[in-house]
């Protein structure tokens, strides 16, 4: 009797196993990839482990709600992909999940022809339903995503529909030049997230404690393992839709270990010890790395000024919870003369010399230097001059007491906190240089580096900071700043998510962003974005400092690399291989 029970239990176990495996196999194998993309680069070798470094822990794997690069660095472009993408070298649009697209004559209807037979990493087929679902989620007011702001055309979310299984259409109320850029938005799988979204639970999905198996994308990699503070291991997505010149699936690289080390110093040492394949080199290390390049079997690449920025932002948010105790800080920060004085005290040459070791450029405008089309070089500049700064302060109603301390019009000592993210030595040094200059002006500055995620919270949800030195990843398309510059933006850092623009110039920027987006001719757009840059430079809610150059050291064993300031080393991760 006992034997029989055991036997039947085993039988049930085996049977159930067989059944489930049939189901799993059934899901994906009948999908045939009809529209692969074939790599134009030389044929590479399959296999190998790529080892790189990450500066911080992700806060979420949910790319839709992720707001910081430490999260999106993991997922975007590697796990999730958009319908279109920009080329890492030319920055032109290229097809990604859509094999082709059409824009109607009047510029309002965009039709995307999706690649047929693309599979999610779990084998389920990718279709227009997934794209529709992604748009549903972005449109949902309950989902805190900055993408929604970017998508808005004329204050309206575009209409979108599935035409057939492989065709997706978006209709916007009026011509909107940068709209194609929005289609780089990362597509998420409906079959994994639909139920959660319906249940109103989307914002809690795919947090960092999720089983990585659950996180399904179309990109070249999937998340294999995440150990907080240690590493993220990415595994090759065997179902990926790109092919090598011989017609075999790529990426070539099977395993991609991304070591989390919050210190850039450790990252540099890891590279020097031959443990990682490439490194973003800091200016200070450039000479030393260049000297050892041959011995270490790597090459040095100076890719010119980056899109990234370092700037100082003042809290001009009347909803700052700390204002109850210190209402005067709001008055200082909203005082234009005060901000101009700070702008005049930015010694950018010293910053480039001391923080960037000579490899950098001063920045004056919100459009990054390499963006030649839209950059307005004629904006108001604030060349370093403490005399001018003092003059501005005088005009702003500030005075000095006999100890040289700066007092506001009520005789209160000007004192505030200034923080930046710890671990980024360049920013820490810029912070110290800025603080030293402001102290020269008689202000009392409490400057300290704090942990990045804590800083992001202060900036985005708690709104209780005074001044933050932080950076944004810039972009080619000026409209990508529509979550930053228009007054309703989530990342409108000095006073986010306003219902009505607080000032006239903010209202004008809102307008200009609308105008710049709807104009179809590039010349017109340039005009609008020029005015926007002038306003920002005039009113300086954000005070720019210096932009580092993009410097790389890449191991010679890593092939097919083409590092750029825009795309870094990994923009063509699927084509990289290890020799």
């Amino acid at each position, binding site marked *: 009797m006992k034997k029989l029970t055991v036997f039947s239990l085993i039988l049930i176990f085996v049977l159930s196993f067989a059944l489930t495996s049939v189901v799993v196999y059934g899901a994906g194998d009948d999908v045939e990839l009809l529209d692969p993309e074939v790599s134009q680069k030389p044929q590479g070798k399959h296999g190998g482990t790529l080892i790189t470094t990450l500066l911080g822990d992700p806060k979420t794997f949910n790319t839709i709600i992720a707001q910081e690069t430490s999260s999106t660095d993991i997922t975007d472009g590697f796990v999730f992909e958009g319908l279109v993408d920009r080329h890492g070298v030319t920055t032109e649009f290229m097809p990604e999940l859509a094999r082709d697209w059409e824009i109607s004559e009047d510029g309002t209807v965009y039709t995307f022809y999706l690649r047929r037979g693309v599979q999610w990493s779990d084998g389920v087929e990718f279709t227009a339903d997934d794209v529709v679902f992604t748009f549903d989620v972005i449109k949902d007011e309950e989902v805190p995503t900055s993408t929604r702001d970017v998508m808005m055309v004329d204050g309206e979310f575009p209409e979108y529909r599935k035409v057939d299984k492989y065709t997706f259409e978006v209709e916007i109320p009026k011509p909107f030049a940068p709209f194609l850029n929005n289609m780089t938005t990362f597509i998420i799988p409906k079959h994994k997230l639909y139920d959660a979204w319906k249940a109103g639970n989307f914002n809690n999905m795919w947090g960092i404690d999720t089983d990585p198996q659950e996180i399904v994308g179309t990109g070249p990699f999937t998340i294999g393992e995440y150990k907080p503070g240690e590493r993220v291991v990415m595994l090759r997505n065997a179902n990926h839709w790109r092919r090598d010149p011989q017609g075999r699936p790529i990426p070539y690289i099977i395993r991609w270990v991304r070591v989390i080390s919050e210190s850039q110093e450790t990252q540099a040492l890891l590279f020097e010890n031959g443990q990682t394949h490439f490194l973003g080199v800091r200016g200070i290390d450039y000479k030393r790395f260049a000297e050892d390049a041959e011995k270490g079997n790597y090459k040095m690449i100076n890719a010119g000024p980056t899109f990234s920025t370092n700037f100082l932002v003042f809290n001009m948010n009347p909803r700052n919870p700390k204002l109850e105790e210190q209402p005067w800080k709001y008055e200082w920060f909203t005082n234009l003369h005060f901000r101009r004085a700070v702008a005049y005290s930015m010694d950018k040459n010293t910053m480039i010399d*001391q923080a960037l070791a000579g490899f950098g450029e001063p920045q004056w405008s919100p459009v990054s230097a390499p963006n030649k089309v839209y950059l307005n070089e004629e904006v108001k500049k604030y060349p370093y001059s403490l005399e001018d700064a003092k003059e501005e302060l005088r005009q702003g109603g500030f005075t000095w007491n006999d100890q040289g301390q700066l007092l506001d019009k009520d005789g209160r000592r000007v004192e505030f906190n200034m923080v930046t993210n710890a671990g980024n030595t360049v920013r820490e040094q810029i912070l110290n240089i800025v603080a*030293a200059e402001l102290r020269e002006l008689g202000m009392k500055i*409490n400057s300290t580096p704090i942990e990045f995620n804590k800083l992001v919270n202060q900036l985005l949800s708690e709104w209780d900071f005074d001044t933050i030195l932080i950076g944004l990843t810039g972009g080619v398309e000026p409209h990508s700043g529509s979550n930053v510059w228009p007054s309703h933006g989530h990342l409108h850092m000095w006073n986010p998510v306003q219902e009505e623009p607080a000032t006239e110039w903010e209202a004008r920027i809102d307008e200009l962003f609308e105008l710049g987006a709807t104009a179809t001719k590039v010349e017109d757009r340039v005009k609008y974005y020029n005015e926007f840059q002038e306003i920002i430079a005039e009113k300086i809610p954000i005070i720019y400092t210096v932009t580092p150059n993009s410097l790389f050291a890449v191991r010679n064993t890593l092939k097919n690399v083409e590092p750029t300031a825009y795309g870094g080393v990994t923009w063509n991760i699927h084509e990289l291989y290890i020799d």
Partner: protein
Amino acid sequence: MQKLDKNIKDDIDKKQTVKDKEYSIWLDTWKRMRRHKMAMIGGTIVLILYIVVIFAGFLSPYNPYKGFKKHFFHPPTKIHFFDEDGLTWPYVYETKSVDWAEYEVIKDKKYPIKFFHRGQEYVLMGLFKSDLHLIGVDQPAHLFFMGSDNYGRDLFTRILYGGRVSMFIGFVAIFITTVIGMIVGGIAGYYGGWVDNLLMRFAEVIMSIPGFYLLLALAAVLPIDISSTMRFFLIISILSFRGWAGMARVIRGMVLSIRNEDYILAAQAIGAKDKRIITKHVLPTTTTYVIVRATVSIPSYIIMESGLSFLGLGIQEPNASWGNMLSAAQNVTKITNFPWLLIPGFMIFFAVLSYNLLGDGLRDALDPKATEDY
């Protein structure tokens, strides 16, 4: 009756003091101490370090926050003692930046080193203002004895100022641990029984608080608008409120062993109050231990400060401490190209070593069993 008692006791006390003058334990210790060469050297260095950091403003050529923008990572200024005519008054040359962190010496003009040079203003011992510096040189030449850091600040000046934190912070901690440790240990040991049990279990609870996590929590909780010296002071004080437990245990053990000695029983028999017995008869026997422990643990606070600054919990820029100066050198490029940035590390090394030698000597000198040596 009571009054009579008291008189007798006072009499005894007086006799005791008379005897003390003939033979002082401190004189005895000092004599033994002087034979301990290494301890004397250590002690001298410690003493010099204290004098130097107290008079940092006067001894240093510059202000610790003054950055020479064009002279960052400047190597130590070469001081010339000889010119074409042989030995001369020491002088330096002006230097000019040619490339990134590379400097050229301009030999056009000699800048003699000046003693009692009028330079930037500083406050001496928190009392008087002065602009008189022991040593200095006229602009545009610079006098960087130990080179300059990445902001062009004089490293020598910052080492002197930074030493204040490093050298003094230990005292605060020692004071707190000692006071609490002696009181709790004394009471627990003297009374024994349930009092002892209660206090010692409490001490164990305190000891089991994990220090490192307490630090991380503190770093997150403490507001950033207090000065970093104040914050560091708070962190150290809170840590020493945790650190007294170890001290209390040892004191309690010592007290326990002498509680039944004849002189304590005698004091009790005369009718002395417990408080008096503990403070006058029991605790003084632990003095040796307390002094030695203090000298030995000050270096551990110096090291702790450098560790905390390294982690970003200690003194923050632009304030100087040996720890944060060392952590600013935490870059392989800097260590290989600008090795003078490591000098603060040597300062920590010297201070800690000297303190340990001094502590060692003191322990031997204060050891009552070592009398046969003498």
